Structures are given as structure tokens and as C-alpha cells.
């Protein structure tokens, strides 16, 4: 039986890549730079606010800033605004923590029609799941290296 690899027509694939439109990299980079930077500026302002107005410090300060940014990402997703920002900014709105909130809230909204257990709860992490898995796995790996290095030296 034929496999997909047997089907490949190299001439055609070369031709397709020659005629297919390409992403305008300069434009995408510029847009993601300024939108991503702007989101980080908001995060930094929130940080200053908690630091100098509310007097928070250390881990507590970081946690409050994350909470506010995640809340903003989630609420903008709920209002249907974040996907428009994402369409414009690309990576600029995916990389900050607001993008993480968007990747959790959007499937939760989408799969609401399949019920709260098998819809919202089960599908909530279909996009964010890999991020969490690789985040934890790399955290464990770095922790191990750090621990072993600490013991030896």
C-alpha cells in the first residue's frame, strides 16, 4: 500500500513553495514587537503599582502581577477582543502570560456546548496542556542538574 512518503512529487512541491505567498516577516516582527512590548509595559506598570502604592515585595509581588495579567487576558478573551489582538500581533500576544490565559479560556468557551465535565473541564487544557507538560518536565530536569551540581561541587 502507498504511504504518504510515496506520494511526494518533488517537482510539484518545489513549484508550490515557489508560488505560495509568504508571511511578511518584517511586518509580523514589527507588529509582535510593539504589541508584545506594550503588554509587558502594562505588566511592568502593574508591578510598580503593587510595589510602590501597595507596598508588596518578593514572590508576593510577582504573584499579584501574574494574577492581574492573567485576569486581563481571560476577560479580553471572554469579550472576544483577544483573538483580534492575536490576529494582528501574532507571537506578540501569544508569548506573554496573557496569551497563556487566552489559550486556556478560549477552548473552555468553545467546548461549553459539550457540557461542563467533558467539554469545559476536559478540553480546557488542549492547547495549554503541552506548555504545562514541557514546563514541568524542564523544571524537573533543571532542578536535577542543579541538585547534582550542588552535591558534587
Amino acid at each position, binding site marked *: 500500500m502507498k504511504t504518504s512518503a510515496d*506520494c511526494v*512529487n518533488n517537482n*510539484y512541491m518545489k*513549484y508550490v513553495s515557489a*508560488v*505560495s505567498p509568504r508571511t511578511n516577516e518584517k511586518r509580523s516582527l514589527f507588529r509582535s514587537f510593539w504589541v508584545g512590548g506594550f503588554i509587558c509595559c502594562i505588566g511592568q506598570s502593574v508591578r510598580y503599582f503593587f510595589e510602590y502604592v501597595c507596598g508588596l515585595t518578593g514572590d508576593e509581588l510577582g504573584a499579584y502581577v501574574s494574577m492581574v495579567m492573567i485576569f486581563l487576558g481571560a476577560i479580553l478573551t471572554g469579550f472576544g477582543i483577544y483573538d483580534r*489582538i492575536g490576529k494582528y500581533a501574532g507571537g506578540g500576544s501569544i508569548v506573554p502570560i496573557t496569551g497563556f490565559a487566552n489559550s486556556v479560556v478560549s477552548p473552555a468557551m468553545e467546548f461549553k456546548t459539550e457540557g461542563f465535565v467533558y467539554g469545559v473541564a476536559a478540553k480546557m487544557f488542549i492547547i495549554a496542556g503541552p506548555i504545562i507538560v514541557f514546563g514541568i518536565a524542564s523544571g524537573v530536569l533543571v532542578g536535577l542538574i542543579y541538585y547534582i551540581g550542588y552535591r558534587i561541587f
Partner: protein
Amino acid sequence: MRTVYFKNKPKIIATSTIAGPKECSGSIGKFFDTKLDDDMYGETSYEKAESRMLFTAIKNSMIHAKKNETDIDAIISGDLLNQIISSTFSARNFDCAYLGVYNACATFTEALTVGSAFVDGGYLNTVVCAASSHFASAERQYRFPLELGCTRPPQSQWTVTGAGSCVLSLSGNGPHISCATIGKIVDYGVTDANNMGAAMAPASACTLDRFFKDTDSSPGDYDLIVSGDLGTLGSRILKDLIWEKGYDIEKQHVDCGELVYNIAEQEYQGGSGAGCSALVFGSYLYDRLKSGKLKKIVLMATGALLSSVSTQQGESIPGIAHAVLIEV
């Protein structure tokens, strides 16, 4: 691969179309029968909305043909969703025999071919052929949640929210289907699920080449050669591939996907989906055929036969195209 000829000339006696707001504001929006303001169509889910759209299209095509449910011998329909639920759930409302067909976006011409064969052979008198698609239900099945903030690559297409239905019968008036070329699956190894135009174009060139050879005709013999949803890029590739085989279709070719949206809307390559060709044929093209402005058209819907599972397993995308010749 071969072309089948329908000697008794099954006629398309009526059509009906329904489309969402984005399609209605497009270049041929004024030709649609039912124009929706809301793509949920008053339902609680997009899947339900799609079935209801298909139901409305089928129902209205029966009304336009002045036929009751008892006059309809079979409904042949399909859509893009898993297990073609939009079609089966809409057919649940009719007391008619039902055949479900699936060839992704080539479903509409597949249904027309099967329907014509039944009617021409005298097995069934009146058959309804229909197809539908919905942007939101297709998006959640094949891609990402609607609210996820991601960019679309420039080679991507936009699934049409719409449904089209037509009634085939030997008695009555209307343009008739004189022959159909049943396509074969052609796969040149395109794996990019966003580049369906490139995946489907070789199949459409293959079917069209066969069609010209079997009918011993050339592109100049037709008023229009209409492809289903190749989009701008796919259309260009089709023209190049068919030119290599010795046919120049530049003057006659139009693509339903290119027609359905305003180019200014920047939906990259245009529309796609099973509903795309059904919608454009049932409205604009049928109108032109009825008024005699078009006399002989080739309608060739094209399908990319991928699933979200096959894409994740790294399989390439098999393409298909079926062509029908519609004459006044």
C-alpha cells in the same frame, strides 16, 4: 476514471441557498435566498446551526420546486463534520429516503453525480442534492478554538458558512446535467493543512483533463469552467497544470471560493468548504443559467480529504475533484 453520460437529461428544477452574514456581504450575497444576520441561527451550538441551515435550504428547494416530502424519492447530502452529522440531523426532519455522501468540499458535485445517475436511470423520479459547511463548526473540528489569538497563514482559506440544495427531476424545467466525470484521488504529497488549494489543484487538473478528453471538447466550448474552492493560489496552480496538458482555461475559469467573498476582505485565498460550491451554484450560477446568460458550464467541486488525525500523524492530503456538465 471515466465520464458518465446522462441521456435522459436530469434537470435541476429548483435550488435554494442560505448563508451567514459574512457571505451575504460578499460579492454575490444578493443572490442568496435566505440571508442570516446571526451565524448561530438561533440555535445553541454551531453544529445545530449548520444542520438547521441545511434543513432550511432543503425545505426551501422543495418549496421552490413545488414538491411535497412525499414527492421526494431521496435526499443525497453531505457536509464536513465528523460522521456528516449536519446532513443526517437535518435529514431526520424529512420523511424521505436518505443517502449521506462525503468527499469533503467536493461533496456537492458528488451528490449531483449520484443523484443524476439515479434519476437518469429511472430508479428515482425526484432527488434532492445538498451540501453545507459552517465556519465555526469546521474551525473547531479542524483547527483551533475561535477565540484563540493566533494568526492565519497567507495561504489559508476561510470556510464558508452556508448551504445549498437543488432538486433533480426528469420532469419540469431547468438546466440539465448532461455528463459527469468522476474523479480519482490524486496526492502529490502536500502536508500543509492550511494550503488546501495546492493539495486539491492536481486532482482538479486530472479530472478536467479527463473531462476534455472524454467529451472531446476544449475550454472554448464552455461559457464557464467553475472550480469549487481552490482559492486564488489553487486556481493559479490549476491553470498552470492544465496548461501543461495543453489546455488554456484562463478565459473561462472562475473559482467559487474566489467569488464568494470580497477580495478586499483579505481572507487570503478565498472561501472553502462543502457549502462553498453549493452556495455559489445554487444562487448566482443557477440564476444565470435560468436567465440564459450562461448556457454551458462545467462545475467541478474539489475536495481535500484530510482529517485532524491524519494531519497530526503527518500524512499528506489526498485531493479529489468531480466535474459535472450543466447545460441549458
